[in-house]
Structures are given as C-alpha cells and as structure tokens.
C-alpha cells in the first residue's frame, strides 16, 4: 500500500540570506560614500593633496616663480646647522608655551571652581569671561593690544594714575614684548574655563560629602578629589592649548608688524615660517619648517599622552 507523505511547506526564513545581507550592506556603503563625497573631495584637493605637495617641496629649492628643483635634505641640514633664527623662533615659541599654557589652566580652573559654587548670575559671568576667547584671536584685538602696551598706551596711563610714572613701551622692549603676547593668550582663558566648569559638574557630590565626613579640608578635597576627577579634562585643555601655542601667529604678526621684533623677541615659529615663505619666497625651506613643526607637535602630544598614564584618572577604568 502506497502512503502519501505530507509535504510540509518549507519554513519561511526569518533571517535574511547572506546574499541579501551583502546587497543591503553595499547599499548602505554606497549611501555612506555619497554623503562623504563632499568631505572626501575637500580633503583630497584642499588638505591631503597640498600636504603631500608640501612634503615634496620641503626637499626642493622653490621660489614660487620658478619650478621646484630637487635638493634632497639640504633644507633640513640648513635648518639644524646654520639657521640661527630657526633656533631663536623655537626658543620663543617654547617659552611662550611653557608660560602661557599653565597660566591659562590656573586661571581657568580657579574661576571655574569659584563659579561652580553656585554664584548668582552664573550665565552672565560665564558669558563675560568667554567673550575674550571669541574675539581675542582677532586682528582688531591685536591692534588694540599694541595701543594698550605702547609707550603712550593705556597701561602706562593707568600706572601713571596710581603713581607709577613710566613711558616704557612694553611691546617695544625685547625683554617684555613676548609677555604682552602671553597676557593676550591668558586673557582668552574663557573657553578652557567653560570646559572645566562642565567637568566640575560631573564630579559626584558623594565624594566630597564622604571626604568632609572623614575630616578633609577644602584644599585636601581639591587635591584629592577635584583634581583627579578633573584630570581627563585637564589633559584635554592642556593638549588643545599646547597645540594652539605651537601654532600661534596672529598676535605676533600684528603686534610686531610681521617682523617678529623687537630683536626677534616675538618671532614665533609660525611667523618665521611665514617670513621664509612669503617674504623671502623660499617655499621649499618654509615647507621643511612646516613638516618639522608637525613632527614636534606630534611628539609633544605623544609625550603628553604618555605622561597622562601616570597622572590622568579615568573613573570608569577604576
């Protein structure tokens, strides 16, 4: 006797087949590529291409009006062996960095700590202290700074009112000119302050309460709780400020009229790079200076990150 087997219908797939998954994936990839295209084109033509071109030019003698002539490592050899201004500009830049970056952190953190105590009118204070960060890098402020610190400027006028009679041109003397630029940078501590303020809000109150119960005073709580909890934010601010200090240009250019004077005392590295490129039209050498700056900033950032392993505390890791 023949028996009919019941043909069960094939079970419907609940998961897509590998082929369907591949098709969906390539559709997503294509959509992503299309959205990225403007940025990709911009990166290739405006950033990547010129960066690679400058690497090539750093090994050439190129004056813009002629063709680049390959000279190998000559630009780099010149930089390290005979160019006194290269070292002078490095010294000025590093001095500026070592003085202004810590000062910015100190002012920013101090003010953020005060404002975190719940003062009245906090939004107003926040705005007032942030405004210099917005306008401080502008040409107008740099020109104003020149007038403030000139021999017959505002600072000497104020000093005269309080009985200090001086006609010193603070921007005209090599010993003080750089520090007027430091003051200009420190004046723009508002951006760092906002970030510190946000970071302080993230510190759990329970930690302070527990420390208070254990008898910790204000300074102890600051050193043992606030600073460690804020250390990732400090790392971020120091890194951003450090990179900014290496690249500082506007203030030195405007205040020294592009010369880096008086007597090279405000010759920032980027200003020297600009002079070699756009005053001397030695684009090959300027490109070499640019690549050296890239290496230095990279190494400095790396050193900072290495150092951060010892001093930065990430709460989630603990």
């Amino acid at each position, binding site marked *: 006797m023949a028996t009919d087997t019941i043909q069960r219908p094939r079970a419907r797939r609940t998961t897509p087949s590998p082929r369907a998954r591949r098709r969906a994936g390539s*559709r997503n990839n*294509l959509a992503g*590529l*299309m959205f990225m*295209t*403007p940025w990709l*084109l911009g990166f290739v*033509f405006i950033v990547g291409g010129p960066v690679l071109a400058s690497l090539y030019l750093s090994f050439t003698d190129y*004056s*813009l*009006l*002629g063709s680049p002539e390959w000279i190998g490592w000559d630009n780099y050899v010149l930089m390290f062996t005979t160019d006194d201004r290269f070292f002078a500009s490095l010294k000025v830049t590093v001095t500026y960095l070592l003085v202004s970056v810590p000062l910015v952190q100190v002012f920013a953190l101090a003010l953020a700590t005060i404002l975190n105590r719940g003062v009245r009118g906090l939004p107003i204070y926040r705005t007032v202290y942030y405004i210099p960060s917005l306008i401080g890098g502008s040409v107008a402020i740099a020109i104003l700074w*020149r007038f403030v610190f*000139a*021999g017959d400027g505002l600072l000497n006028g104020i000093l005269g009112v309080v009985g200090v009679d001086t*006609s*010193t*041109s603070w*921007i*005209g*003397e*090599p010993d003080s000119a750089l520090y007027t630029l430091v003051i200009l940078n420190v004046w723009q501590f508002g951006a760092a302050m906002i970030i510190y303020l946000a970071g302080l809000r993230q510190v759990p109150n329970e930690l302070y309460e527990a420390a208070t119960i254990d008898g910790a005073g204000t300074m102890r709580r600051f050193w043992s709780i606030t600073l460690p909890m804020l250390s990732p934010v400090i790392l971020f601010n120091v890194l951003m400020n450090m990179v900014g200090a290496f690249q500082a240009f506007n203030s030195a250019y405007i205040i*020294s*009229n*592009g*010369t*880096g*004077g*008086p*007597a*090279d005392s405000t010759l920032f590295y980027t200003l020297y790079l600009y*002079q070699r490129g*756009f*005053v*001397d*039209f030695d684009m090959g050498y300027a490109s070499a200076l640019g690549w050296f700056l890239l290496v230095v900033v990279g190494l400095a950032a790396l050193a900072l990150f290495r150092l951060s392993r010892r001093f930065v505390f990430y709460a989630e890791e603990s």
Partner: protein
Amino acid sequence: MRRTRFARTRPFIALVAVAGLAACGGNGSDSSDPGTVGGEITYSYWGSPARAEKVNKVIAQYQSGNQGVKVASEVADYNAYIERMTVRAAGGGLPCVIGTQSTFMAPYAKKNVLLPLDDLIESKAIDVSKIPEEVLKAGQIDDKQYMIPTGTFVRLVAYNADLVKESGAPAPTNDLTWAAYADWLKQVQKGLPQGKYAGEIEAGNMFSFTSWVIGHSQQMFKDKELGFDKQLMVDWFTYWLDLQEAGATVPPSMLPDQRLSLEQTPLAKGVAASATRDIPHLYITEKALAGNKLGTSVKAVSMPVDGAIPSANVLGSNGMSIPKDCENQATAASFINFFANDQQAALTFQSDNGILTNTANQDALLADAQTPDGVKQNVTIFRDLTTRRDLATSTYPDGLSTLTAELTRLYEQVAFGKVTPQAATDAFFNKAAQALR
C-alpha cells in the same frame, strides 16, 4: 519598481561630475581677440579705499571713451597685494594689468612673468614721450621696459618746521653731508623738551641706507652681489648707534612705531622732529600733525651726500605692467596708455600713487583749481628736483624684499645691544649671498 544599478549610482556620478567641472573652471575675464581693443580686462593694484574711488572714476572715463571694453578692478593693501601677486604669478592667474613698483619688479621680470613693453612702445600703443628718460629707466630691467612708470617717489629728509623752530636750531639745507646732518640732529635735540627727539632711527630703512651708499660714491648692487664695502655698512650702523646713544633719535623701543601707518609714526605724532620720507608722504604727515595741532608745516631737503656725486635722492617708481600670459594685450596697453597720458584721468587720480610721471599732466595738475594744495606741493618739489637734476637711481634686484626685512631686523639687534655693528654686517652679507643668487 526595482531600480537599476545605474539609477542607484547616478546621483553619485552627478556629484563627482559637478565637482570636477567646478575644479576645471578657468579665468573667464581678460579675454578677447589679442590684436584689437575690446573685451574685458582686470586691473589689480594696491591702495586704500580713497585710492580705489579715484581708480574707479578713471576706469569709468576710459570705458566711456572705449565702448565695448570692460575693466574690472581689484585692490588690496600693499603687503597683501605683493603676496597675492606672487602666488597668482606662480599659478598663472595674473590679471592683464597689474600695479608694479621698481623695488619689487625684478624677480617677476627675470622669471619671465612680465611682458617686455618695448614693442608696444615702438608701435605707439603706449606713448611714453612725456615721461622723462630717468623716470622711464626705473621701469627697466636689463634695458627692457617692463613697467610704465605712472607715479614716482623720491626719499628726502623731512622735518617738522615748527618743532625745529621751537628747538632754536636753523632749518636744514640742501647741501648737507652726513656729518653735518648728525651735528644738526644733536643741535635740534638740545633745544627740545623731554619726550621729544630730533629724529627717527633710519638705520633699518633700506631706502635711507641706499642714499648713504650712493652718497659715498658706491653702488648698492653689482650683478648678483652687493656693490659696497662691508666697512660702509659698519659705519652706517655705528652712525645711528652713536646718535641713538647721544639721545638725538627716538629710543629703540619706538622702532615698531616707525613701521606703523604714516599717521602713527613719531614724526606725524610730533614726537620726532625729522625723518626720511617719500615726497607723496610729506603732505599726509603735515595733515596728521595739523589735525593734532602739533605742527603746521612739513618741509624737506635733499638726502646728505659725502662723495663727489651730485645727488643721493633715490628715485623709485610705481607703475603698471602686463603679464606675459595676458590674452588681451591690446586692451591692456590701451588702458595703461590712457592712465599714464590722459589729462582728465590725471586730474581725477590727482597723483595718488606717486608724483605723476607725464610732464604735461603735471602742468595740468598745477593749473587745476580742484587739485589739493598738498598734491601741488608734491609736484612742485619733484619738479624742483628734476630741474636741479638732484635725483639718483639705483637698481632693485631679485631678493631685495629679503634684504629689506633683514636690514630692519639686524639694526634692531644692534640697537638693543644684542650684536655688534660688525657682526650685523657679516650677517647681512651672508644673507645677501643667499638672497641675490
């Protein structure tokens, strides 16, 4: 409906195509049949909004007399203009008419960026018959005319007549030697109140240094080298250092103030009694002083001379040039000819960028009631120098901008005691060896 593969990628291809076409866009202006006057050109120059207003009026006059021609204009301040010009020259994107100056023309001429204009002059497309020979020379490199000078400037010793009178010293004369000039500065300083000085520091100024070199019967440049003795430069630095230490010049901390705009310099602010200035700047300085009630009259005398040569008043020129790759040379030449020779254009422009070089237009400017007194004063001073043949010329080679900046920087080092005059001179010669190659 199932979309085809092409339909899916079509938007992506369109986006790339548009980006590619945009990148291929070229300069649409400055084109026409090269042999005839017509089409569009662009005139690029440096200056202030006040100058731009005058240039636009001159362009309107040219266009009304040349139907079918359109002239666009671009203006930037001096330093930005030179940087932009060099970058555009590198990219082959210079407009058909560019403002040039005898001091920075050489690298562009020598690297075949500029068109020699001799053929256009010979064919009378550009008429230079009313421009004096010595002025025309300022636009030449290797005996080829690369620039049509439209305005000249001459460096002189300028002084605040009221402040000098207040000091009790006599006014300087046209026959000074450098030693006599130093004595005069010290004499002026003796009679000035505290906070005022006899002179600005000229040691870092390339034009003043050029006068020093020429005034000692030497030349600035010879082929691709410096043409003067090292000791002459040591003496130059020492000369100003001595005056500085004697208190007869502004202190070195005021050196940055000397590089500010004319109205902000120690001379214009009544802090210094004298300084070297180009003729067109005399009136501007006078106006600034008068505006602050610090003086009413700025006069000028010839630069000091120690050698046997008749003059150290170095002449420079501003003018117009045509890039070699201009596709509308006929129109460019026509516009330059109009700017340099048309009387109405001259009366409109009023010598805004140096004393007009066309002698007939100088007459018209002096006769016109609308010409400001300061402009008439400038033209008169220049004519007087021309009549007396009290003018000198110098060459301005490739690398001059580097040496100009280096001289300023080196004297600052000397002024603040960072280096000796000898060391500064050695550094300058080393730099020249690299810059003038």
